C-alpha cells in the first residue's frame, strides 16, 4: 500500500488557506493512484505531528505544498514529522533541486519518502503558464503578452527568489511570451513598478504563492495600483498606466497543481499509473514528464 501526504501551511485565521490543499488532494484521490491521500498542516489539523499515524500504508510519500526550500521544508516539517536522521544534506540540493530522501519516522513503522516542495519542481513552470492561460481564457496566450512571476523576495528566504528566478528562466526559454520577468514584494525589482519594468500592453501577473491570502489578495493588487483598496476588488484585466494587468492570483489555486504533487511522488518512486494523464485531461494541463 502507498499513501500520499500533502503537507501545507494552513492558517488559524483564514479558512481559504487550506482550500487548494483539499482541492488538489481530492483530484489525486479521484485518480486512484494512492490507497490513501491525506492533508496535513502546520496551523490546522491534522497537524504534521499527527498525520503519519493516520495512514495505514507502509510506504508514504510526503510532498510539501510549499513554494521554496527553506525553513519549513528543511526544519519544521522534518522535525514535526519526526523524520529520523534527517538533514537538509539528504536532499543534496542547490536550493531548487531537491527531489526526495527516504527516511523512517519516530512514531510509526513506515518508510517515508520526503519529497522536495512543489514550487521548485520543473512541472511548476507549466502550472504558471497554465495559470496565465486560465486568467486570460486563452490557451495560446503568449504573443503580445508579458508575464510577471511574483515572489516574496529574499528577505524572508533566499531560496524563495531562486525558485522564482528558476521558473522565470524556463518560461523565457519557451520563447512564448514577449517578455518574462521575476518581480518581488520586498526587493528590487518590485512588483509595485511592474508597468515600468514591462513594455507589453498586456501583462499577466502570476504570484508564486500556494494559497490566496493577505499577500495575493491585498498587498499585490494594491502595490501594482490595480486597486486603491483591495476591499473594492479589481478588474481582470485592469488598466494601470495604460497597460492591461491580468492578475491571476496565487498559482497554487490552479487545478493543474495536482500534477506537480503527483510528479513529486512519482519522482520519489510512487507507482501512479496513468494519474498524470487523468489529471491533465481533467485540468487541461500538460504534464512535464517526457519533456
Amino acid at each position, binding site marked *: 500500500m502507498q499513501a500520499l501526504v500533502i503537507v501545507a501551511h494552513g492558517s488559524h485565521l483564514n479558512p481559504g488557506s487550506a482550500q487548494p490543499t483539499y482541492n488538489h488532494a481530492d483530484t489525486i484521490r479521484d485518480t486512484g493512484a494512492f490507497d490513501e491521500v491525506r492533508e496535513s498542516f502546520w496551523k490546522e*489539523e491534522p*497537524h504534521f505531528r*499527527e498525520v503519519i*499515524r493516520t495512514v495505514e500504508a507502509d510506504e508514504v510519500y510526503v510532498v510539501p505544498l510549499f513554494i521554496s526550500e527553506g525553513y519549513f521544508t528543511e526544519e519544521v516539517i522534518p522535525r514535526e514529522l519526526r523524520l529520523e536522521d534527517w538533514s537538509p544534506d539528504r536532499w543534496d540540493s542547490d536550493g531548487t533541486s531537491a527531489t526526495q530522501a527516504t527516511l523512517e519516522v519516530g512514531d510509526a513503522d513506515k518508510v517515508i519518502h520526503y519529497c522536495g516542495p512543489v514550487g521548485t519542481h520543473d512541472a511548476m513552470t507549466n502550472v504558471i503558464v497554465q495559470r496565465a492561460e486560465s486568467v486570460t481564457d486563452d490557451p495560446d496566450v503568449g504573443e503580445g503578452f508579458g508575464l510577471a512571476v511574483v515572489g516574496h523576495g529574499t528577505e524572508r528566504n533566499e531560496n524563495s527568489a531562486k525558485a522564482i528566478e528558476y521558473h522565470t528562466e524556463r518560461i523565457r526559454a519557451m520563447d512564448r511570451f514577449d517578455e518574462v520577468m521575476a518581480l518581488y514584494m520586498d526587493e528590487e525589482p518590485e512588483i509595485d513598478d511592474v508597468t515600468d519594468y514591462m513594455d507589453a500592453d498586456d501583462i499577466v501577473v502570476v504570484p508564486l504563492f500556494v494559497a490566496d491570502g493577505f499577500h495575493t489578495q491585498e498587498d499585490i493588487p494594491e502595490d501594482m495600483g490595480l486597486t486603491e483598496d483591495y476591499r473594492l476588488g479589481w478588474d481582470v484585466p485592469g488598466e494601470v498606466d495604460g497597460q492591461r494587468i491580468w492578475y491571476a492570483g496565487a498559482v497554487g489555486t490552479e487545478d493543474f497543481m495536482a500534477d506537480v504533487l503527483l510528479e513529486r511522488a512519482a519522482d520519489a518512486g510512487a507507482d501512479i499509473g496513468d494519474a498524470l494523464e487523468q489529471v491533465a485531461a481533467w485540468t487541461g494541463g500538460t504534464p512535464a514528464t517526457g519533456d
Partner: protein
Amino acid sequence: MFDTLESEHEIAFDGLSITADGGTYTVEAPGIHEADCSATDLETALEDARAAVTNWYFWERLVEGHDTPRRAFLRWCEGAPLELEGHDGHGSAVDDRYETLRAGVVRHWGQLELTTRLSPAVDGHGQGQRVYDIRHVEDADRDRGDLEQYSEPTDARELVTHDADGRYRPLKTAPTLVTGWHFEGLSSTAFVETVRAIYPATIANWHREQHDALDIDHWLETAERQTGIYDIVDELPREAVEWVAEACCVDSQCLKRREWQYEEGDELAVDGGDGVFPCREPCSLVTAAARKWTVLESEDDKTWHLELTTSELNQLTEIVDAVADGRTDEIREADVYDGANRYRARYLRAKRMDGETFAGAHEVTDDEGHAEHAEEGHADGEDHTEDGHDDG
C-alpha cells in the same frame, strides 16, 4: 469461508471457531458444538450460527485492517471487544450485539452521535454488513427530515469550517460544531473518513491510548522543540502554563482530554477534561497563543492609580467574564443590568476613557505609597487573575 478454511485450516473469531482437518470440521459457536463433521454437516450447523458467520465475514473480509485504529474504532462503535493484546476486551457477544445492532448502537465522539446498524439491504454472507449514521449530539431527537442529508466524507469539510455564527473554526475539536446535518447509511470506510474529517487524528490517538501507547509530549518538551518565532514559548513561566491550559484546553473550549502536563512528573492543576479522545501535546493554536502570552508575561506587574466606583470595577470583571465565556452576543440590547451590556460598556467608556486608555490612569510609584490603591474589598485587583486561575 471454505476458501479460508482450505488455506488457513482455522477460523477463530468473536466466539466462532472452526477447524479443518482433512475433509472434516469441528465447529463451535454459541449453542453449537459439532466435532469431526462433514462439509455438508458444517453448512447445516452454520445455518444456526448465521450471526457468527456474517459477523466473521464483515470483520474479516470487509473491514479487515487488523491492529489499525480504523478497525478498533469500528469495533468500539458497536460495542464489540477491542481485540487488545493480552486482554479479553470488554464487549458483548455476537448474538447480543446483533440484537442491539438491529435497533442501532449509539456512541458519542466529541459532539458526534455515531450510530451503527445492520444493513437491512444485504443478503447472503453480507447480511452482517454494518452501516453507519452520523449527526450532531444536539440533533439526537430531531427528525431526519429536518436535517440536511450528506453522503460524502468530503462534505464534512464544509460543516467543520465555520461555527453557527459564521466564524472560522481554527480548532476542529472546539465544541462549536454546527448542527442540522445528517450522514446516513455510510459504509465503514466512508464513516471513518467522515469522522476523520470532523475530528482529525482523534481515532489514531485514541487507539494508541487503548494500547497504553499514547506518546504524550508535555508542555516543556513541546515548547523547547519550537524554533523561529515560537522559539520563545519555553520561557513562559510555569504558573502561566496553568492559565494557558485553563484558557484554551478545558472542556468548554476543546473536546480533547488534555493528557499533557507541564512536564513528566509535574502535573498541571487544571482539569484535563472528560473527552473520549486524548490530547497528546499542546496544539498549534495553544503554541501560537502562548507566544503572545510569553511576550506579555515578560512585563512586570505595576500598581496603577485610576478612578473607578466600586460598581465600575465590578463592571470590568463582568465584561472580562462575558468575553471569556463568549456570551457577549447573548446579552440583550436593553439589559442594562448586565455590566457587559453594550450600552453599559459605552457609558463606561464615555465617562472613564480618554482615547484607548483610562483617563488619568498613572502608575503608582513607591514615593506615593500603596495605601491609596487599597480601596475597601478591592485591593486585590491585580491578584484577582491569579486567584481565579488557581481554582481549577
